[in-house]
C-alpha cells in the first residue's frame, strides 16, 4: 500500500479497501523504522495524525469526501502549524509553537489530508543539500552517503523512501525542483503568487513559493487543487481563478513546441546527466513534440543576481528573530546589544549568518546601487529572456541540476560551488515562472531530473506535459531498494 500514488490511495480509501487510520498507521510505522537512518522528519505528529485519520474515516463514511480526505501527507517545517512545533530547522525556533496556521497547511487540513509530521530542511530554507539544518543532515534514500538536495530535503527524502505519499515544499531558488530531481520525484514550483505565503516563514519574499512533491504529475495536480488560490492575508497572492489541475492531464501534446536553452547544456553540465536529458527530450519528440534550441542569454547572471536579491530580502526578513517576543534568547544578556547579537549569533547557523551578512552588505550605504539596484535590473533582463522565449515555444526544458546527488560534506565548505549547483533553477524564481522537475532516468543508480518551465500560470499545461511523459515512461515509479 505504501508504494501507491495518491490517486490510487484516494480510490482505496473511498472504496473502503483501506481506512485512513490503517493507512496513517502504516506510514507512521515506516517513519519509525526508517527515519533514524534518513533524518527526514523533525517532528512526527503521531497522536494528531491518528486523530485526524479517525475524523477523515468518519467523513469517508459520511460521503463528505474531497480527493485528499484521509490521505497522509508531510509538511515542510517552514509552514506554521497551530499547536505543532515549527522550527524552520533552526535553533532559533527550536521552541516555537505557532498560535496560527499557515494558509497552505490549513487548506490541506480542510480537505481532510492527514499531517504525519514536519519535515527537515536547510535552516530557513537556505541551502541546496539539507546540510545546514540544526537537526542534522538528511540522507538521500538512493544512497545514504549522499545529500537529498535542498532546501526541501526532508520532504523529498520522506516521499522517495515512501514514508509519506506526498509532501509540501517551498522553492526560493530551486528548493523543490533540485531535491525532487536528486531523489527521483515530481516537484512543482507554481507561479509566484499562485499559492499563499501566509504562515510560511519567509526566506526571500519575492522569490518564495510553495508547491507539491509527489511521485507523479497526476498526484501533483491533486495537491495543487488544494494548495492553489487567492488568500486575502497575502498581498502578493493572485486573485485569479484556480483551474482543476487534473482536468487537462490527458490532453495530447502533439505539436508541443519545446525550447532547449543552449545555456542549460554548456560545459557546466555533467555529460552523463546531459545524455539522460537528451533521451527524455527524444521521448517527447516521439510523443509528437517539436524541439528547437533557444537562448536565454542572461542565464549566467541568474546565480550572481540571486545572491544579491535573496540575501538582501532574507537579511531583513530575519531581523524579527531578535530574542524578544519568541524564539531563542541567549543566557544572561548583559544589555540590549548583547541580547540581540548573542541571541542571533547563537540562534542562527553559519549559512544563515553568511546570507544575512551578504544581504546587509549589499543594501548598505554606498553599495545599494552597485549591488541591489543592479540586481533588480538584471532580474528584469532575466525575466525578459523568458518572455521572449515563450513567444516561440510552449515549454522550456533542460536539466534541473547539473549533476546527480553529491556526497554529504562534498560542497559544504565552499558556498560558491554549492550555490552554482542551482544554476538551472534560480532564473525561474527571479522571473516568478512555474516550473517542475520530473524523474527522467538514472546515472549510476542516482536519479536525474528533467526540468519543465512554463509560462505564467500555466501549471496545468506543465502538469499535462509531465503526465504524458509519465504515461510513456516509468522513471517516476522507480523506488530506492532498501525502502
Amino acid at each position: 500500500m505504501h508504494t501507491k500514488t495518491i490517486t490510487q490511495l484516494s480510490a482505496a480509501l473511498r472504496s473502503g479497501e483501506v481506512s485512513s487510520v490503517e493507512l496513517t498507521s502504516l506510514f507512521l510505522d515506516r517513519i519509525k523504522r526508517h527515519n533514524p537512518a534518513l533524518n527526514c522528519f523533525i517532528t512526527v505528529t503521531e497522536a494528531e495524525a491518528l486523530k485526524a485519520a479517525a475524523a477523515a474515516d468518519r467523513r469517508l463514511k459520511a460521503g463528505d469526501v474531497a480527493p485528499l480526505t484521509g490521505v497522509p501527507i508531510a509538511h515542510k517545517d517552514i509552514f506554521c502549524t497551530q499547536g505543532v512545533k515549527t522550527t524552520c530547522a533552526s535553533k532559533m525556533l527550536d521552541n516555537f509553537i505557532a498560535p496560527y496556521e499557515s494558509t497552505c497547511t490549513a487548506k490541506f487540513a480542510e480537505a481532510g489530508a492527514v499531517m504525519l509530521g514536519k519535515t527537515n530542511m536547510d535552516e530557513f530554507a537556505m541551502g541546496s543539500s539539507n546540510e545546514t539544518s540544526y537537526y542534522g543532515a538528511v540522507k538521500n534514500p538512493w544512497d545514504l552517503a549522499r545529500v537529498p538536495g535542498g532546501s526541501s530535503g526532508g520532504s523529498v527524502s520522506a516521499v522517495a523512501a515512501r514514508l509519506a505519499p506526498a509532501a509540501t515544499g517551498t522553492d526560493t531558488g530551486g528548493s523543490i525542483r533540485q531535491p525532487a530531481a536528486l531523489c527521483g520525484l515530481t516537484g512543482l514550483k507554481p507561479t509566484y503568487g499562485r499559492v499563499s505565503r501566509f504562515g510560511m516563514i519567509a526566506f526571500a519574499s519575492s522569490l518564495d513559493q510553495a508547491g507539491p512533491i509527489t511521485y507523479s504529475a497526476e498526484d501533483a495536480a491533486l495537491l495543487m487543487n488544494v494548495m492553489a488560490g487567492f488568500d486575502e492575508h497575502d498581498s502578493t497572492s493572485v486573485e485569479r481563478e484556480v483551474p482543476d489541475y487534473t482536468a487537462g492531464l490527458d490532453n495530447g501534446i502533439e505539436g508541443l513546441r519545446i525550447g532547449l536553452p543552449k545555456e542549460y547544456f554548456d560545459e557546466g553540465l555533467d555529460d552523463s546527466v546531459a545524455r539522460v536529458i537528451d533521451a527524455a527530450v527524444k521521448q517527447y519528440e516521439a510523443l509528437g513534440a517539436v524541439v528547437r534550441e533557444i537562448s536565454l542569454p542572461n542565464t549566467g547572471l541568474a546565480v550572481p543576481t540571486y545572491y544579491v536579491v535573496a540575501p538582501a530580502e532574507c537579511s531583513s526578513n530575519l531581523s524579527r528573530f531578535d530574542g524578544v517576543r519568541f524564539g531563542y534568547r541567549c543566557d544572561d544578556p548583559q544589555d540590549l546589544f548583547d541580547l540581540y547579537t548573542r541571541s542571533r549569533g547563537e540562534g542562527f547557523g553559519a549559512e544563515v549568518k553568511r546570507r544575512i551578512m551578504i544581504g546587509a552588505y549589499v543594501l548598505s550605504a554606498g553599495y545599494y546601487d552597485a549591488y541591489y539596484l543592479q540586481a533588480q535590473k538584471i532580474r528584469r533582463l532575466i525575466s525578459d529572456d523568458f518572455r521572449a522565449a515563450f513567444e516561440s515555444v510552449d515549454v522550456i526544458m533542460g536539466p534541473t541540476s547539473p549533476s546527480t546527488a553529491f556526497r554529504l560534506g562534498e560542497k559544504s565548505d565552499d558556498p560558491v560551488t554549492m550555490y552554482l549547483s542551482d544554476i538551472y533553477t534560480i532564473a525561474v524564481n527571479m522571473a516568478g515562472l512555474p516550473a517542475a522537475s520530473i524523474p527522467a532516468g538514472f546515472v549510476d543508480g542516482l536519479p536525474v531530473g528533467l526540468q519543465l518551465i512554463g509560462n505564467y500560470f500555466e501549471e496545468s499545461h506543465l502538469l499535462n506535459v509531465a503526465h504524458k511523459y509519465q504515461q510513456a515512461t516509468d522513471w517516476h515509479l522507480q523506488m530506492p531498494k532498501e525502502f
Partner: protein
Amino acid sequence: MEWEIVIGLEIHTQLATNSKIFSGASTAYGAAPNTQACAVDLGLPGVLPVLNREAVRMAAKFGLAVGARVSPRSVFARKNYFYPDLPKGYQISQFELPVVEGGQLEIQVEGEAARMIGITRAHLEEDAGKSLHEDFHGSTGVDLNRAGTPLLEIVSEPEMRSAKEAVAYMKKIHSLVQYLEICDGNMQEGSFRCDANVSIRPKGQEALGTRSELKNLNSFRFVERAINFEVERQIDVIEGGGEVVQETRLYDSDKDETRSMRSKEEAFDYRYFPDPDLLPLELDEAYIEAVRKTLPELPDEKKARFISELGLAEYEAGVLTASRELADYFEVAARVAGDDAKRTANWVMGDLLGALNKEGKEITESPVTAEMLGAMLQRINDNTISGKIAKQVFDCMWNGEGDADAVIEQKGLKQVTDSGAIEKIIDEIMANNPQQLEQYRAGKDKLFGFFVGQVMQATQGKANPAQVNALLKQKLA
C-alpha cells in the same frame, strides 16, 4: 553677525482609522499592554501585511487639501534597524516614492505678513510600539499596542524662519488634519507629534548650515521653546569658534533644554529597499477625483466665506476658523440665532471663549451648546431679552440651569414691552427728579442717559431699551 534661522518640520499624524495600517488589530488608545498587538504587529514568523484602504484614502485627502500631487504609483520600503519597540527589525515606510509629493500651506504669525510654506512630501508608514523605561528589575518593558498604527509623516521644506513660524505651521497642519477628519489631533495621546530640523546661517548666505534634529516636541509650547533654545545653543557654538554637529537632540521639557541623544554604537544605515511583501500602491485619476469630492470646506476657504458672506472681519474669521469644531459651533449658533452673524461672532469669541478659557475647557466640552447659544441670541433678536440680560441668561445656561427660554421664564427676565407700563414708570421718575428734568429741558442733553438708567433700574433691566429711548424722547421733550 546676524543669523538667519532655518527650520523644517516633520510632523507625524496618526491616522484615525479603526484598524492598523497592515493588520486588523484595533488602534484604540489606552488598552492594556499588548492586547491590541496581533501576530502581524508582533512580527511573528510567516505573517504578512495587507494595506488598510482607509489609511490610503486619508493620505490622498491630505495631499489634495494642500494642493500636492497624489502619486499614481507609490512604493512601500523597509527601513531596517533594531529596537525593542520595532518588532520586525524594520519599519514599513515609504522612501523613494511617497504617496504625496509637493504642496503648500499659508501661515500667518500675528503682526506679520502671511507666508507660504512648502510641503516636500507626505508618506504612509507604521508607528512603532512604546518602550516603558520605568524599572522592571533593571529591564525595559515593551508595549506593542501602538505598533502598526498608521502614520502620515508630513515633511515641510526648510522654509520657516522663526520658532513662531514653526508653531504657526504646526498649528495650521494640526487644524487641517482635524478639518479633514484624518487625525484626532490629540497631542497628549501622541496622535500628533513633531520633530524639528533646525539650523542657522549668516543672513544672506545661500548654503544651509548643519542641522540638528529635535525630537520629542509634543506640544506647541515645546516646539517654540525647544527651537529657541536650540538656536541660541547653535549661535553660542559657532560664535564660540565651534561647529554644529549633525545629530539628533532630545528636548527635555523639565529643564527646557535640548541634549544630544546617546550616540548609537554605529552610524545609522537604514538599508532601505522596496518591501517585497507589498506591491506598488496605484491610485488612478478616478480614485483621486472621488477623494477630491469628499474634501470638506478647508479653513482658508471657510475664512474667506465668513468674511464675504457673513460680513465678519478678517480677524474674527481667522479666530473662528482656527479649528473645525469652533467653526462648526459658530455656524450652528449663527444659523439658529437667525440673521445676525456678527452678533454671534461677538458672543462666541467673547463670552463663550472667555468662559471656556477660564475653566480650561475645549469647545467640544462647552456646557452651552451651539444650539443653546443660538436660541438665546434669537431671543435678543426678537426683543424677548436685551443684550445685557442675555449675559445673565448665558451665565445661567453655563451653570446648567437650562436653556435660554427656561432661564428667562424661571427668572422672569422677559423684557417689559408694555408701553403703558413703561410710560407709567417714566412719569414717576420725572415726578421724582424735577431738578434733572429741568436741567435736561434747559439743554443738558447728556442727562438723557440718566433717565434711561433710572428706567432700567426700576425695571431691573428688563425694559426694552429701544422702547425706553423712544418713550423718553417723547415724554421729556
